[in-house]
């Protein structure tokens, strides 16, 4: 007899460790690919896997093999036209046709080794640069938060969850139900015995037999267990997703001439991080892109990151526009408003005070959170000082100077620390 074993329930991720080793080894290439992907992707689309390709020569495992040259004889099937002594031109390239068997030996083609990074793996690499604390990572990567609520009773569970009242009530019912027929028979037998005893006839053997039967029935009733595993009931708890609602996120970016590609890239990561955070907490998110130089416009994401502008900078134009949009579209209190502003700190001198005022009067009272980053290596300028004053008064206004991606996270520290107070 052959042995047949069902292994389907055994772990299927036996190769997980090997895969992880593989990713570990090619970290540099993978990081590069993820970096490229972040540049290319929409910020609302950051949350998925990515195809990564690695040059074959980096990934190959070398072994000794023959090079071209010398003499080789090969047998092939399917001769159609050749006769002995035919002379054929050498095929060009890697020896296909004439030496199909050899082609695989010389596998140094230009094709890259491409594979898919899973969502988790992608996010891990993305987060790595940002120096996020681990707790935040799980918060961002995890599925929605769940709340455990009571939901009746179940037939199985852990002993700690046994519901004593329910179990005993069940046991009682079972005892009653199971004993009922026997008790009825017992009653009948007893009555039977009584009539026999009352009659005068000599019926000793019959009486003895009835007594035996009554005894047996009593035993049977006694054998019904007081409590049975079958009676046990457990308190049931199920997980329910926490209530969520909707949010709008404003991305505000300075696109004046001094914002170069690398600064925009940094800004993009900043926006992505906020987006990811919102995504975990709100069911529905709208994103509004506002770019500005001396005047501000609302644009598509494509234009936001990729079109070039030049000229001076008036930050208040963007803040005003944001205020208008909030009033027009998101004024009812169903919306949680978040804003992220990125700039290199340039602003018209006389405008900065203006910005501070708009911020305090017409934006911050409406916002859940407003984060500002200044991407610059140099000394902070007047806008920074103006915002510093704002920051003193409002806890949900955060600002940070950024030199590298690792500086982005602290802007959000406050935000990630607390649970957002949803308004709906």
């Amino acid at each position: 007899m052959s042995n047949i074993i069902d292994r389907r329930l055994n772990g299927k991720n036996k190769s997980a460790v090997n895969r992880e080793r593989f990713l570990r080894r090619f970290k540099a290439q993978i990081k590069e690919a993820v970096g490229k992907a972040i540049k290319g992707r929409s910020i609302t689309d950051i949350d998925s896997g990515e195809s990564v390709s690695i040059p074959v020569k980096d990934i190959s495992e070398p072994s000794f093999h023959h090079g071209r040259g010398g003499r080789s004889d090969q047998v092939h099937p399917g001769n159609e036209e050749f006769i002995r002594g035919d002379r054929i031109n050498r095929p060009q390239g890697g020896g296909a046709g004439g030496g199909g068997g050899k082609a695989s030996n010389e596998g140094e083609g230009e094709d890259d080794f491409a594979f898919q990074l899973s969502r988790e793996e992608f996010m891990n690499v993305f987060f790595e640069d940002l120096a996020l604390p681990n707790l935040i990572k799980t918060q961002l990567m995890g599925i929605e938060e769940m709340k455990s609520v009571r939901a009746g009773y179940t037939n199985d569970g852990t002993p700690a969850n046994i519901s004593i009242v329910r179990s005993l009530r069940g046991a009682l019912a079972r005892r009653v139900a199971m004993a009922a027929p026997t008790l009825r028979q017992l009653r009948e037998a007893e009555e039977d015995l009584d009539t026999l005893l009352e009659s005068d006839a000599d019926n000793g053997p019959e009486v003895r037999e009835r007594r035996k039967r009554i005894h047996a029935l009593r035993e049977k009733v006694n054998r019904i267990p007081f409590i049975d595993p079958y009676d046990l009931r457990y308190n049931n708890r199920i997980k329910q997703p926490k209530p969520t609602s909707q949010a709008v996120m404003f991305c505000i970016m300075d696109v004046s001439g001094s914002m170069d590609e690398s600064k925009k890239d940094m800004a993009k990561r900043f926006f992505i991080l906020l987006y990811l955070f919102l995504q975990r907490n709100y069911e529905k998110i709208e994103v509004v892109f506002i770019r500005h130089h001396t005047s501000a416009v609302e644009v598509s994401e494509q234009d936001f990151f990729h079109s070039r502008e030049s000229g001076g900078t008036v930050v208040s134009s963007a803040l005003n526009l944001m205020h208008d949009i909030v009033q027009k579209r998101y004024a009812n209190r169903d919306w949680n408003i978040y804003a992220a502003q990125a700039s290199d700190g340039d602003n018209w001198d006389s405008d900065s005070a203006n910005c501070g005022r708009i911020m305090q009067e017409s934006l911050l009272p409406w916002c859940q959170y407003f984060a500002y980053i200044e991407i610059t290596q140099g000394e902070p300028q007047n806008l920074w000082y103006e915002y510093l004053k704002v920051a003193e008064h409002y806890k949900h206004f955060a600002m940070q100077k950024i030199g590298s991606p690792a500086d982005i996270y602290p802007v959000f520290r406050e935000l990630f620390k607390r649970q957002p107070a949803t308004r709906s």
Partner: protein
Amino acid sequence: MKPISTGSEWTFDLIERYDAAIREIAHGEFHLDTYPVQLEIITAEQMMDAYSSVGMPVNYQHWSFGKHFVQTEKGYKRGQMGLAYEIVINSNPCIAYLMEENTMTMQALVIAHAAYGHNSFFKGNYLFRTWTDASAIIDYLVFAKQYISRCEERYGIDAVEELLDSCHALMNYGVDRYKRPQKLSLAEEQARQVERENYLQLQVNDLWRTIPRREKDGASRAAPRFPSEPQENILYFIEKSAPLLEPWQREIVRIVRKVAQYFYPQRQTQVMNEGWATFWHYTLMNRLYDKEMLTDGAMMEFLQSHTNVVYQPPVTARWYNGINPYALGFSMYQDIKRICEAPTDEDREWFPDIAGTPWRPVLEFAMKNFKDESFISQYLSPKLIRDFRFFAIRDDDRDDKLEVSAIHDEQGYQAIRATLSEQYNLGSREPNIQVWSVNVRGDRGLTLRHTRHNRKPLDEASAQEVLKHVARLWGFGVKLESVDSDGTVQQRFDCHPEAAVASL
């Protein structure tokens, strides 16, 4: 008789009944000798797992297995390739995987192919009998996995990974081709391992002793040649003689070497092994059908997948990728059977000793006593050469054109048989590289020597890469010379250990 099943769904009960029916025919009618069978039902993901760790149920961890997994997964998910037809492990009991997604007919086919075909080949063929120990391999791999993960804990993942990379580069040069290896088993292996560590280190120390021994006769002689003869098993040589390896590193070299040795017979019997299994699934399934235990529909399904397996695209086809071992092997066994049962005059002339004799013993003999190379040179018949329309092409770099040296005609049969046989000779397919000498008294440099076959050179880029790995293992400079048949050195490679460490 009633068909065993009519639908395409499988159940455990049906698998059991099919297995019993197939076993009845295989053992009862055809006297196949097999190890006990263990059928394991697995999912597609598990099949991919098994695939990427070279088919073994346990194996040590290494990124290259992850790479294979990633590759397999990609191919499978895009539908570019089906998963393995079957995976069967040369162990006792013989483990064959059945994939959950398959239909009942496919399960029956895999049982016949793997659990009876391959299984009897593993048990019968002389290479497997001499070189592998089916009852010990799983145990040994368990030992290897534990040992290597202990090393990772103690010496770091990177150190172990580097070492394995280097060993893998030399894996094909870690086999004894002629010397019979010792059997391995878990308990013994563990018991002997510590002892071996101490002893080995002692040996090495003695070899590299720096204080000269006092010569008894007082006269200084020329240094003895080391190794006294060229060594074909490079990994073995490194394990025993590399001056700088730690004992645990020697043990890992040994593990890679043992695994390579275990797979060595499989690489030499591809055509024979696949052909044998295919021949038997074909024969057994047909017998089931004759006994009316298979429905017509199931038979059609079986034949379709069988036909796909044994299809040989011609050289002119765009998807031609060499000779299909299933096709060649299957046809050869079928042909031997035909020669036994219905020989033509030609067959009588070419195979006088088997023509017209009972086919079963002849086939058994052929399976047991050959490897691909000798099997082809013994049994490839003119009829098959005609059927396949084989032709041989000579590619000589001294000639500006390719030449058709033989086709399927009277003058060509012998030549094609010889050429095809040579094509399956591992010895000439892989460069012949051996340990040539060690400069014991000088810089401790190691010299490898490649003996050219038909003037074929070494591929330079890969040779340079592999040499870095050799240098890393050896710890001192390594040279590689490629030598022509008249003894002149045609290519030279050189690698210093510092360079190897820097660039790997």
